[in-house]
């Protein structure tokens, strides 16, 4: 699985760590997701932190909000590196659970699949 996609979850405060822990607990898949917090970072140091978490291989970066410092850092990395990195906003547990079992896809396809899986999880259940 050395060519498998890495998932990097970037968030405010401790949300990323909690999502990764929950995804690993439910799926039993460890090491596929790396959490990054923006705590204490300016734009430059957050970008460096995300880059370190991505490493040298292809990755999908999951960001909490569709704007702000986490997204800015992720998009800057994706533009700078110009290879195999896709960015998804609005991360939720459902998309991460789907992602960890589909890491053999190209980054753009895995990102779209994650968006679809995450979106399907947002519902209003019958009362």
């Amino acid at each position, binding site marked *: 699985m050395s060519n498998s996609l890495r998932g990097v979850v970037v968030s*405010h405060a401790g949300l990323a760590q909690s999502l990764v822990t929950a995804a690993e607990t439910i799926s039993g898949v460890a090491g596929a997701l790396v959490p990054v917090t*923006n705590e*204490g*970072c*300016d*734009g*430059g*140091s957050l970008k460096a932190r995300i880059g370190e978490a991505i490493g040298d291989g292809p990755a999908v970066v999951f960001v909490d*909000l*569709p*704007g*702000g*410092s986490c*997204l*800015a850092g992720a*998009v800057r990395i994706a*533009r700078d590196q110009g290879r195999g990195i896709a960015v998804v*906003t609005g991360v939720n547990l459902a998309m991460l659970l789907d992602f960890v079992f589909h890491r053999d896809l190209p980054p753009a396809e895995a990102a779209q699949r994650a968006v679809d899986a995450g979106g399907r999880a947002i519902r209003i259940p019958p009362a």
Partner: protein
Amino acid sequence: MSLAVVRVDDRLIHGQVVVGWGQPLGLGFIALVDDKVRSSGWEQDLYRMGVPPGIEAIFASVDEAARRYDDWVKDARIGLVLTGDIDTLIALSDKVPKLRRVTLGGIHHKPGRSERLRYVYLTADEVAQLRELAKRGIEVVAQDVPTARAVPLAEFAK
């Protein structure tokens, strides 16, 4: 109305600005004063993504901001002016003498800076720059969110 805040935040437009300040103050616009972002279409698109409907994102160079500042003050909507660093703030204040109060909202750790508050790290030179602003009659405070106390410069720049 008037400008509610002139803020320095090295994360520029992000959640704390849009939600933390934007919701309780009912912001109608955020003016980001940053020469680099002003010249980059894709960066403007990026920051615009985080701004909800109802809040206009304005991107201005320092010179443009100086020219438009009076219009922002007179704007019927409530506005927030944002710079990413102290140098830009000082460049703006040099061109806008009526700027009387600035809020440090987020200046994070870098080599050479030391912690002054949980969300404010400054070098000795930056402290001197802020003291110079205060000598010119500009009130300098630190306040990350509206519900927090506005901390006067004298308390965190000793």
